[in-house]
């Protein structure tokens, strides 16, 4: 992460007011483990969610996984959401701890003009295909991913279909008219 980026504040999908979490105990624990890292809590219906800067992602994930009291050993899902109005992608990591049976979400913003984020495959091997899929369908690059080849789409496919700007090509209507006659 260059100097320029770390100077930016946290990239996030706006409109969501940072507020007190509905899970105060979890919030306190996470804040304790992540001391020294800038963390914003977010209000989500049924789990604790934090927003972090993308430069801290790897450190945060490693701490969340290795800490005995949190031990988030299972990466449930990596979702990337496109927010074109704010020119930002948001990567959401849903974590679960098998032993302690608790869950949380980690979010980080990735700006359009520099769509790169660290890969978490070194923390959870299971992030592999999730990240490949996101790279392919949304065009976000994951730095440090061992193998970021296309996964789902044919080789000659152009564009990133899950971006909001991607328009599905119109159907060949003439064909259906022919069929009806």
């Amino acid at each position: 992460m260059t100097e320029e980026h770390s100077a930016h504040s946290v990239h996030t999908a706006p409109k969501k007011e940072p507020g007190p979490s509905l899970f105060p105990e979890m919030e306190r624990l996470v804040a304790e483990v992540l001391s020294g890292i800038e963390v914003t809590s977010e209000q989500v219906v049924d789990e604790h969610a934090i927003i972090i800067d993308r430069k801290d992602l790897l450190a945060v994930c490693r701490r969340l996984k290795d800490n005995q009291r949190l031990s988030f050993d299972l990466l449930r899902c990596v979702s990337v959401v496109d927010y074109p109005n704010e020119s930002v992608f948001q990567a959401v990591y849903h974590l679960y701890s098998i032993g302690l049976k608790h869950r949380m979400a980690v979010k980080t913003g990735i700006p359009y003009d520099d769509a790169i984020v660290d890969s978490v495959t070194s923390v959870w091997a299971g992030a592999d295909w999730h990240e490949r899929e996101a790279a392919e369908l949304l065009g976000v690059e994951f730095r440090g991913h061992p193998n970021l080849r296309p996964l789902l789409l044919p080789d000659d496919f152009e564009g990133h279909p899950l971006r909001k700007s991607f328009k599905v090509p119109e159907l060949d209507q003439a064909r259906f008219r022919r069929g009806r006659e």
Partner: protein
Amino acid sequence: MAESRLETVDMFINMGPQHPSTHGVFRMVLTIDGEQIVDMKPHIGYLHRGVEKLAEGLRYREVTVLLDRTDYLAALNNELPYVMALEKLLDVKVPERAEYIRVLVCELNRIASHLMFYGAFGADAGATTPFMYAFRDREEIQHFFEAVTGGRLMHNYFRVGGVRYDLPEDWRERLTKLIPHLRKGIVDCERLLSDNEIFLNRTIGVGQISAADAIDYGLTGPNLRACGVRLDLRRDQPYSVYPKLEFDVPTRSRGDCYDRYLLRVEEMRQSLRIVEQCLEQMPDGPSLGEVPRVIRPKEGEVYVGTENPRGEYGIYLVSRGGDYPYRVKVRAPSFCNLMALNEMMRGCYIADCVLILGSIDIVLGEVDR
């Protein structure tokens, strides 16, 4: 000794996308040395239908149609997390009867899915009859589904706040006939394979994966429980009426093909137990709660994971107001389970690789989505 002038090269074998035992359109490129596998490269995407993009263009109620078709062996289990996510966003209460109906059909669906696994696994091992036995019982379940939901395979049955139709009038008779039939069917299935000497030799110790690796790769469901990790979202993150029901979460220790097989057979028994309890405890009342006429959840997001027959089926639903979901991300269990395939296949034989793939029990519809 004179140096041999013979050179050997590794042979590549392309398995799929059309191959009898890739369970759909999975493709793997095997590097083999004789009969042994040196390396395996999976290729997916031959059934990538763009469900997540399509869902963004549909109204909230219509999305279940697509989710049905992701994991087409357990369609009802896919609808559940989605409607649960919506209910959380909308803050809708579900009547108890509806919850029981949901659990009832989900568990029957789990049995049907595991039966399909059983048949396909038998076929991978080279036996033809297990498929027939499994489908005999599967058909019976599908007949019941047809009476309840109107569909054999695709149901589109769960609604926000309940289920589409109440149970048919004769559901108790149907179910009391179905349960002993299934119970006997499971015994038949077990007698055909579980103790077969050849089958044991083929599966024990094949495709082993350690618990630590399994968790690292994000395995869930029976594949993880076969390694000895007791993770079952029905119990650990209780939802619906599962806390009121009694069932065991079986685990095995070795984490090989045989354990994965045996675990699923045991799970069928447990599901049957749940079905029986649903039959006893089914309360009266409405099957659909108070739901706003137009579904327009407030801004927000929610992630709901439920226990699908293959593992954790999660829905990450983002709403920014309006009639259409902003983003529907599907966390498909097979997609994650398949990542561990390479780990399991280290140094096995070609014949094993077919079995290992079968034992993970993938559905390409949700791998590719």
